[in-house]
């Protein structure tokens, strides 16, 4: 996939993701402060505006860098800073290459995951976006899974992982203050990641057919 294709895919997917605004607001309101809906909708809008302003034929790295920087500033928050930083870290692994292949995508996702883990000082099981990301990084890296199945498998495993966060107690961010009352609610950040994957999947399928 070249940079122009990536830009188009991201643009379409974020257009779909914006529809999750109210759901994410409500999930975040249940255990946090309810701003995740705004973070996602403003972040998506900021990314789409900046991507549209890029020169023709951007590199995949440029698309990711631009996405990260603009998502971080759209509606600054925990999620915005973590995801923005993660995209910047991912962009670094991609470098200046003109194509993003499966291996490149996997390396990028791993770097993004590591960036969130490092900066957020979180562990798996702390009930964060990391719990939804972890299985999907493994899928991207697994050579057993064919390229054309990758996104579908990621969506499926992320969905299971999000469901499993319901049983966990939040140990990071605002939701940690809710303590035991966080149990029974899925993690909003993990859900946001799932919705992003679903949007990418739908857009990729739409683009390919």
């Amino acid at each position, binding site marked *: 996939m070249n940079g122009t294709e990536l830009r188009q895919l991201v643009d379409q997917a974020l257009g779909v993701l914006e529809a999750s605004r109210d759901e994410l*607001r409500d999930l975040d*309101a249940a255990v*946090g*402060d*309810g*701003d995740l*809906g*705004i*973070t996602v909708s403003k972040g998506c809008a900021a990314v789409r505006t900046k991507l549209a302003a890029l020169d023709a034929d951007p590199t995949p790295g440029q698309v990711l860098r631009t996405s990260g920087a603009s998502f*971080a*500033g759209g*509606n*600054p*928050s*925990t*999620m*915005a*800073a*973590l995801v923005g*930083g993660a995209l910047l870290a991912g962009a670094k692994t991609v470098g200046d290459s003109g194509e993003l292949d499966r291996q490149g995508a996997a390396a990028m996702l791993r770097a993004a995951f590591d960036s969130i883990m490092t*900066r*957020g000082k979180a562990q798996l099981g702390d009930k964060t976006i990391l719990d939804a990301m972890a299985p999907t990084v493994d899928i991207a890296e697994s050579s057993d899974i064919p390229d054309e199945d990758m996104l579908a498998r990621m969506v499926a495993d992320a969905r299971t992982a999000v469901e499993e966060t319901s049983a966990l107690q939040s140990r*990071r*961010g*605002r939701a*940690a*203050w*809710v303590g035991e*009352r966080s149990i029974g609610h899925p993690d909003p950040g993990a859900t946001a990641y799932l919705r992003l994957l679903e949007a990418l999947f739908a857009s990729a399928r739409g683009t390919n057919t």
Partner: protein
Amino acid sequence: MKKLINDPDAFVDEVLDGLLLAHHHLLRSAAPDNRALVRADAPLDGKVGIVTGGGSGHLPLFLGYVGSGLCTGVAIGNVFSSPSAEQMLSATQASSGGAGVLYLYGNYGGDVLNFDLAGDLADAEGIPTRTVLAADDVASAPPDRAAERRGIAGIFFAYKCAGAAAERGADLEGVAEIAAAAVANTRTMGVGLSPTILPAAGKPTFELAAGEMEIGIGIHGEPGIHRGALETADAVTDRLVGAITDDLELVSGDRVAVLVNGLGATPLEELYVLYRRAHALLDDIGVEIHRPYVGEFATSLEMAGASVSVIRLDNELTQLLDAPARSPFFQQ
């Protein structure tokens, strides 16, 4: 939604427009989007800058504590959201007088991540920074995880003491130490009687039935440690002050300052009813109240409720607390 606003998405920008029109003698903008403000005479050559910041909706927190004897600059986020690292960097640059910058703000994930990033960017420009986090909310974590606590109204004391230290010429380490000492000796606990409505969301951030109170509520409506039927002002004050004196391990002979803070909709009159009881409780255990503060210092939009903060003072903190200070929102 009983709000006097225009377009919710323009809310914070319009607030800042009004603020800069009203207070241009004391504050100036340090970013094209006005999301970084500094005192009008910043930077102060050779003095440590203090930069704070956080979400909007808490006036006079945070920008109300930018002024002489207080903070040098502030980065301003949307309602209840962190400012961006870029905005923090703008405040940092405009506050830097060559002696480094202290980041002094409340312990919230989004703010920490963004300030850390801003610190990296400042470093790359040759501006050394230190960070001290206010974490005074007793209700937000037990003593063994005190570093995880939220920062709420008690941050006022850290601003006041660190600001006075910077004003009298302390170096970056020195100002950071004072701020840390103020934070270490400050505890706060609040009570909420009604929720907050975000202008952009248009819905309450949480539900609280009529006649209910939430003890230990955060200033974004984060849940506290007890929800139950509303009690008398004295009973509520007993809970708040009791938790604080326990956690601070106050003993007879200690000297403190007390801050009774309104969260927004609670009348000033009621804050004095709380102060009356807090004063009596501290008096009873032989603690000397060096200075009382009563009013709105850190609000949560139109939330009804209040908080009590106490700082234990040694001689140095006492002197710094007593020093003059002036912003459009606070004067002493």
